[in-house]
C-alpha cells in the first residue's frame, strides 16, 4: 500500500499557538477523489496518529483546491516552555507515513 506522502504533498503548520493544521495537497484530481472516498484519511485516523481527541479535530475536504485539511489541538501550546516545534512545521511525518488502501 502506498503511503500518503507518495500520493500527496503533506505539510504541517500552526493554526495559531493552540492548533496545528495538517494540509494534504493533491495534484491529480482523480487521485484526490480516490483518497477522499477511501476513508483512509479521516479525523479518527489522524486523532489516533497524534494522540488527540477525535472530537477536537476539524476535518475538511476542499474539492476546488484538491486538498484535505485537518486541524488538531496542540498538546503543547506554541512558545510555551515545553514546546519543541514553535511553528509546528515538522509535525507532518506521522501522517506522511499513513498507508492508504486505495479502492
Amino acid at each position, binding site marked *: 500500500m502506498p503511503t500518503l506522502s507518495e500520493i500527496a504533498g503533506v505539510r504541517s503548520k500552526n493554526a495559531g499557538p493552540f492548533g496545528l493544521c495538517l494540509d494534504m495537497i493533491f495534484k491529480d484530481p482523480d487521485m484526490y477523489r480516490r483518497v477522499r472516498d477511501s476513508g483512509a484519511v479521516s479525523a479518527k485516523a489522524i486523532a489516533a496518529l497524534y494522540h488527540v481527541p477525535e472530537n477536537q479535530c476539524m476535518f475538511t475536504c*476542499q474539492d476546488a483546491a484538491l*486538498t484535505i*485539511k485537518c486541524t488538531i489541538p496542540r498538546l503543547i501550546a506554541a512558545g510555551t*516552555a515545553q514546546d519543541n516545534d514553535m511553528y509546528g512545521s515538522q509535525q507532518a511525518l506521522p501522517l506522511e507515513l499513513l498507508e492508504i488502501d486505495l479502492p
Partner: protein
Amino acid sequence: MVEVRGTYNGGGNFIHDGFIGAEAAFEEALDSGLDFVGCDAGSTDCGPWHLGSDQGLIPDRSLRMLLEYLLPACVSRKIPLLIGSANLSGSRAGVARFKKMISQVAADQGLKFRAAYLDSEIDVQDLKKQVAAGRTRPLDMRDPLTAEELDRTDKVVAMMGTEPYVRALEEGADVIVGGRTTDPALFAAVPIWKGVPPGVAWHFAKAMDHGGTNLALDASAMLPGSGVPTWVIGIAADDHFRIVSSNDKAGISAHKVAQSTLHENASPVSFLEPPGRVDIDNCTFEQVDPHTVRVTGSRLTPLPYTVKLEGVRRVGRRAMTMCAYRHPDTVRNIRTLMDNMRGYIAKRAQAQGIMPDEYQLIIRNFGTDGILGPAEPNPGFIPQEAVVVCECITAEQEVLDVVMTMVELKLHVLGGPHGGGAFPHSPHVIPMGDHYEFNVWHVLELDDPLACCTIDIVDY
C-alpha cells in the same frame, strides 16, 4: 462597476530582503495602475516573546533599507501603502518604532505625504471592565478570561479589522501603519472603502495575504528561467475577484488560488474576520487564461462584530545550555541519564534552599523523539549522536544561576567513564532574558469597530 487593484510586499512578514533583486518586477506591478500595496509585517508564529518584549524581527538597518525603497516607490506614484501589524506583534512600541523610522526616511528624502498610525494596544485595566460585562469569549478551547488572569498579563493587542484603515483613507492618508491587524484586513480595506462587497473583498484579501506570496513564488517557478521574480496582482470587483501574474511569462493556477485559504487557518472553506464568517465553499475558481484566475461566489455571513485579542504574561527569567554526546553507551541511555539528572538537580537545589516549585527545568532530547513526542513513528531509534538542550525558567536571577550551573556541571560528567558533553559555546550557559507565554487568546465584542484603536495623523 468598481475594480480595485492591489499587490503585496515582497516577502511574508515584511522580510527585509524581500525586494532585493525583485525591484523591476515590483515596479512593473506598481506601474500597471495599482490602487494599493499591502504589507503584512506581523505574526504570532515566532512566539510570545516579541509581544512581551516589544522587540521586532527586523533590525534597524534592514527596516530602514526597506522603507527607503518602499516609501518613495509608492508615494511618488500616489499609491496608498498599508503596513499592518508593525514590528511583528503590532504593539504600541512597535508602531512607534515604525513611525520614528518612517519620519526619518521622509525627512532624509524630502518626501511629502500624509501618514496615519493606528494603535490597537489594549489597556489591561479597561479590558477588565469588558470581561466583567461579559463581552469576551475564549478561542481554541481556552478558558474564559478573568480579572485574575488579566492581573498577571503584561500586554494585550487587538487585531483590527478594515474600519481603522478605511477611516485613515477617508482622512487622506497615503501611508498607513497599523498595530496588530488581521492579515486579510490590510488587503480588504481599500476594496471595502471603494465599494467592493465585503464577501468578495475579504476572500480576495485572504488570497492576497500570505497566500499571495506563495502564489508569486509558484508563478516565478513557472517562468522559463525559473526563479525570475514576478508579482501577483489581485483585482477585486462587484461580483468576483481575479488573481493575475504581473507579466505574461508567469502562470497562476486555479488550484493554487483555491489553496490560498488553507494558510494558517483551521478550515479551508471558511474563516472568521471581525465582521463575520467568510464562506468560500460554493466558490468557483475559473482558469481564464494561464495568467488569470477568476473567483466567484464568495460570501460574508455577518456576525456580531468582534476583534481577536492576543496577550502575553511574563513567566520568568530564562537561560539555556546545550551539548551533545557521541559515545554509544551514553547515546543509548540518554533519556534515562537526563531523567536521573532531573532528580539530582532537584535534590541539590533543595539543599541550597531552592524548592522544586520555584523553577521549571526543561530538558529537550533531540535525536530520538524530541520533535514529535508521543506521535513519533519510530520511538526506539538510537541515533549516532544525542543533542540535549536544557533550560531553566524562574522568577529570580539567583535561582536561575544556581540551577543552570548545576545543570552545566552535571552535563560535564553525564557520560561517566565515556566523557562529558561536547559543548559548542563559551559560556555554556546562555541567558535568554524574559520568557513569556500567550495567555490571552480571546475575542472582544465591540459596538464600534473603531473603539479598539487610536488614529494618529502626521503630515510630512
